[in-house]
């Protein structure tokens, strides 16, 4: 990756969380018949949080204040392996998608430990739910990405995600991956219908309840880290849907990716505006759809491999 493209990647990576959240919130406001907050509202919120002094309960240990920064760091590094602008990423190596998945896993672990460290019943419940959902989504995501890797012959995110022509089996593989990654996005970024990011109800929340006790810059790190994951997850989906491959000029691929990225954010906002949140005990069943997507992709790739020989 050339230096200008790397710089562009970094700028987009760190600006996108604010914009993606802004677009989602604006979409939801429009559905509700409201004008909605400014697109940059998240930025203002983060700036306000950074000026505040964090408050720590006497129950907590350093785990509590380290957790937000682990989450933030893992999210930021994971953004380096994802082809945000369509082709290539600053950090690209064989099987980088495994690195990506476990970076997110590490971030989640830090989040859960930080929550448990407060000793609060609410946060314990939140951690337990987060762990449960992760158990359901992780195998499906690996099934999908592994299938995609074997079907495309690529071993890096950038190779796997770039468009390889219209081939019926490949379309099914990509569709399966879209399903799995959409659900991954909903679980990891605590979006509807898995989790309600706007609710104030401690007993129903998953992600939001785990950050209840964080304040000031720690909370800002949590919020920004979560928004980063949301933006990166949306970018993964955008790359997967991008119809411009190796034959197209680089800027066309990048422009299409950014356009699709915005479309994914609008779609997330629309889903949140039209659906109610699922009942908690129905969510594991809902997440099985990701596994179904993975199996579908696997079958299609096996069929494609059989056809090739």
């Amino acid at each position, binding site marked *: 990756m050339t230096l200008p493209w790397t710089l562009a990647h970094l700028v987009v990576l760190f600006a996108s969380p604010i914009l993606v959240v802004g677009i989602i919130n604006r979409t939801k406001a429009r559905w509700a018949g409201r004008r909605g907050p400014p697109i940059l509202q998240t930025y203002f919120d983060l700036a306000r949080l950074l000026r505040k002094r964090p408050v720590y309960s006497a129950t907590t240990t350093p785990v509590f204040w380290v957790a937000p920064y682990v989450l933030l760091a893992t999210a930021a590094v994971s953004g380096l392996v994802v082809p945000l602008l369509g082709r290539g990423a600053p950090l690209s190596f064989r099987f980088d998608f495994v690195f990506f998945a476990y970076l997110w896993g590490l971030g989640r672990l830090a989040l859960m430990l930080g929550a448990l460290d407060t000793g609060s019943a609410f946060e314990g419940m939140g951690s337990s739910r987060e762990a449960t959902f992760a158990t359901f989504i992780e195998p499906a995501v690996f099934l999908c990405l592994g299938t995609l890797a074997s079907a495309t012959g690529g071993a890096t995110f950038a190779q796997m995600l770039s468009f390889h022509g219209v081939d019926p089996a490949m379309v099914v593989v990509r569709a399966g991956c879209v399903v799995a990654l959409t659900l991954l996005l909903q679980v990891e970024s605590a979006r509807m219908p898995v989790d309600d990011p706007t609710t104030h109800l401690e*007993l129903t929340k998953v992600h939001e309840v785990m950050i209840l006790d964080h304040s000031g810059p720690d909370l800002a790190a949590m919020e920004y880290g979560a928004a980063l994951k949301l933006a990166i997850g949306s970018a993964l989906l955008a790359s997967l849907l991008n119809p411009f491959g190796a034959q197209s000029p680089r800027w066309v691929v990048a422009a299409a990716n950014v356009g699709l990225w915005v479309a994914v954010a609008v779609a997330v906002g629309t889903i949140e505006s039209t659906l*109610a949140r*699922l009942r908690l*005990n129905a969510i594991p069943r809902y997440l099985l759809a990701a596994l179904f997507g993975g199996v579908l992709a696997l079958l299609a790739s096996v069929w494609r491999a059989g056809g090739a020989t």
Partner: protein
Amino acid sequence: MSGSFPLGSWTLAEVPELPGGAWSERVAALLGEGARIVTAFGRRDGGDVVASAILQPASGELVLVRGRIDRALGYHALTPTHPAMHVFEREMHEQTGVRIAGHPWLKPVRFEGSAPSAMAAYPFFTLQGKEVHEVQVGPVHAGVIEPGAFRFMCLGEKVHHLEIQLGYQHRGVEALLLRGDPRAHAPLVETIAGDTSIAHAWADCAAIESLAGLDADASTDRGRAVGLELERVAMHLAGLAGLATDIGFLQGGSTYGRLRTTAINTSMRLCGSRFGRGWLRPGGSRAMADAALVDVVRANIALLIRDLAVINDRFVSSVTVRHRFVGAGRLTSEQALDVGLVGVAARASGVNLDQRSLGLGAYREHPVETVTDPTGDCWARALVRIREMDGSLAWLRRVFADATELASVQRPVGALAAGSLVVSTCEGWRGEVVHALETGPDGVLVQHKVQDPSLRNWFGLALAVRENEISDFPICNKSFDLSYCGHDL
């Protein structure tokens, strides 16, 4: 019977005062015959407690059973055989200190005066076992939620038992209402539970008027009923907006919330307060509308009917909304009758109980159909709200179709009759509001008992969440939508 709701008036010299045992036997006998307990309360009189139980047989009129019970001797609790009595006996014990033998759980209903030690004698239940955990919510909540302590005893995500401890908002309302001229208490009564201003004011005004020998006239009744139905529409809209928000159903939350503004602004135009403060006064109904304002009101009602049809359809037909509410927080009719639920919560469990259905006063010419649903889950409580709102709007439309204006009425209220007890009810949006006023031999008020429907329904919520997911508690809670301050007084 005049007025729009059942009201009982007794000259106390003519009512026999039964001793403890006979009193409870008589109450039990009436309950056994199918009468419903409306309220029961006591008042200290020297070493005795003067107890009053008000029951309502199927015919609708109120029946009084009066007792004079020795405080130390007491009587045998009715709760073990008639669970609907539980909260009344707890409250009576707390307020009078009368001995109630065999009551399973005489935990104070609220923190009375400077003696919180009674509450300390009844700590939360505990549940033991390896898989068990307890979750405490409150009494200090995030946001603008009123104080109340909820202790969940859970097995994983499942609630085994919920104990609700209230009383943090106890302001001494009943004691305050004994000071000064009771005819001037309406502004105070309107603030007992701010979301039920009109229903409380109506129950109070009807009682004062009955004591003063003033018959409610049709025009006053109609004006008051307009206020009550607008309050019902506004609060059902608020409840549905809350339910929709709690499950993340954005369209329901925003549209019901927007329409509530139309409803409360209509009250604002009619009486000067969005919550109907100042609408009712003893001897009068002060909301006023000339022909031009009546047109505005008609237009608002038409707008509510039009827009509600759309959003109700969205709400009811949404698969995800149904998925969240159906089966959550289910309460059977037997449970509802057992614990003596009233109002929306009772009707959503198939209990046919709506004081408006008697067709009195303002509801004679334009009757309101009682809405019930047999299932008793959150979905039923949402549907009952939707259908009641439709009923109230249809009622308002009929009233304003005939009316060309709404007149402000104010008649003088004379001195209160001495030695009398008046119990008046009003079917507020949440359920039946009861006020009981007793005057002494000199015509001075000796007791003013206030009863918000929340007092009886909180226990229903505790029952409803058993064996439910703890994450469904917020929607169960919202579907009951009970008042803390109305309970705590």
